[in-house]
């Protein structure tokens, strides 16, 4: 029972940590606000108050976007790692984010503007990438690194598609430069409405599937002897991962590595039980992106770094470390 206590402690601590991070995200920025002032301003709710308007139209959507995208991508990564049984897999590595991104840009270029359209097309793109990788892995035994290379190829194809659209239809997506590296500076509360519904639904589904994900960890044959429809479950779980990653990409762009770093770190701390890994990844993923975004917009004031760049700076070396570690094992 000691293991589970550790997991519960992490969930408790990261809940507190998340509250603190949200508070920091709201209070700190180009101008710093004291927490007491923040609370007073929010409760007063004066529509003419300059500070209130800033909070409501800039900081609150931004912190919400960071929280949603971080949680969604971290949970998506945890699911993908379990389904593919590969700690190197994550939405950005196997091309899920790129698939979502390509479809977002395609939709912005060719389809009428509709707030529901972006998350939906992002989901379709993410799902396409997931199924592509799953189909390739089912053709035979792929080593961990080979799977990553497969993802790299899928990634390259989708990225090339994105760049082509950017060049041919430069006005298709407002803030496209930010989109390609992943940034939250142009997020408004309007674009968050549908993705937040998608993400909430994705979380609930992910929690419901956590037991099945554990059964998959036993290996495909064992899962079959326990009565699981392994292939159907793999597809269903990846679809949930695609909902989450797609919704996040639809407003945050190509934010990378949170889906790799966070679930991996969580598993190092509390083990593989997905009933704990999923909620813990959601919480710590939220914290991680809120704090990274805070750094990205305050580190080089008055300039702002897209948060995706900052995360790649951290995530890239971490990924290399994982590859080296795995190579030693194999």
């Amino acid at each position, binding site marked *: 029972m000691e293991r589970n206590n550790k997991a519960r402690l992490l969930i408790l601590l990261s809940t507190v940590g998340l509250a603190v991070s949200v508070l920091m995200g709201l209070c700190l920025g180009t101008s710093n606000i004291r927490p007491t002032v923040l609370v007073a301003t929010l409760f007063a709710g004066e529509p003419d108050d300059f500070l209130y308007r800033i909070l409501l139209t800039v900081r609150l959507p931004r912190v919400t976007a960071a929280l949603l995208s971080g949680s969604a991508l971290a949970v998506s990564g945890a699911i993908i790692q379990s389904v593919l049984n590969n700690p190197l897999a994550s939405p950005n590595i196997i091309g899920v984010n790129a698939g979502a991104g390509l479809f977002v840009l395609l939709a912005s270029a060719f389809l009428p503007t509709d707030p529901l359209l972006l998350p939906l097309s992002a989901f379709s793109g993410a799902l396409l990438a997931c199924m592509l990788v799953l189909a390739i892995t089912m053709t035979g035994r792929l080593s961990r690194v080979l799977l990553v290379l497969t993802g790299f190829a899928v990634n390259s194809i989708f990225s090339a598609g994105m760049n082509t659209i950017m060049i041919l239809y430069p006005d298709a997506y407002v803030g496209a430069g930010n989109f390609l590296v992943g940034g939250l500076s142009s997020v408004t509360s309007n674009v968050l409405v549908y993705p937040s519904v998608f993400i909430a639904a994705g979380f609930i589904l992910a929690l419901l599937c956590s037991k099945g994900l*554990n059964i998959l960890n*036993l290996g495909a044959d*064992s899962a079959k002897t*326990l*009565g*699981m429809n392994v292939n159907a479950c793999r597809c269903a779980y990846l679809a949930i991962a695609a909902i989450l990653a797609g919704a996040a990409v639809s407003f945050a762009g190509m934010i990378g590595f949170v889906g790799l770093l966070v679930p991996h770190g969580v598993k190092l701390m509390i083990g593989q039980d997905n009933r704990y890994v999923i909620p813990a990844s959601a919480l710590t993923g939220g914290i991680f992106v809120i704090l990274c975004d805070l750094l990205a917009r305050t580190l080089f004031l008055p300039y702002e770094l897209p948060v995706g760049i900052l995360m790649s700076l951290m995530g890239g070396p971490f990924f290399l470390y994982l590859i080296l570690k795995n190579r030693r094992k194999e």
Partner: protein
Amino acid sequence: MMEIMIRLEDVTYSYNRQPLIHGMDLTFEKGKITTIVGPNGCGKSTVIKLSSRLLHPDKGKVFLENKEIGVMKRKEFARSVSVLLQSSHIPDMAVEDAVMSGRYPHQTPISFSSAEDKRLTEYAMEMTYCQSLRSKNMRQLSGGERQRVFLAMVLAQDTPVMILDEPTTYLDINVSYEIMELINSLNRKLGKTIVLVLHDLNLALNYSDRLAVMENGKVVAYEEASDHRVHRCISDIFKVDIRRLTEKGKSYYYSFKL
């Protein structure tokens, strides 16, 4: 008249167009311990996998009692038949959680573990001496410990039929005997139908009700374990002698190379 638990009817299975098993008829009797022996590559594991729905016959049918297993619901089948596989995959999971996963076919996909699930998990760990390992990760265990955990998982599944492919691999000789005694008592006390694949001829000869000898994808002998015809067949295939030892009115068989 013996009741039949599992029946393979005219089953053919090919891999890469090479028929591994051709037109096989084989039955496993209810409430008995049946052991399949045979040299490496004779198709023992294929028979096990066909009987446990992990492989599907190209031709022919497999029945559990009178139901064709291919059309049974997955979980319904998993509540009737549990399988211990020879597996190279080591789950990254705590022992207790692995054993508990044996309860999966008795649960809905989202339900929590019931008191019954917990009781059977504890019982399975107790029977296989896994209780002291409960918090350890499967990857920290020795081969023998891991085999005991896999056996506990199958026990927790609590099915009337247990199919065990090489349950004593990696085990020290004393633990092998303990496991075989356990399997024997599950059969005698709880009436479980048990199908085994064993490499160790001495265990096969002394713990089985019936022996099926396989060679090149065919069953070449299928008799009571004490039947001299099956002994002669084993002697021919493995180039060993089988002798009987009677001690305190009980007969034991042992194989050796002269």
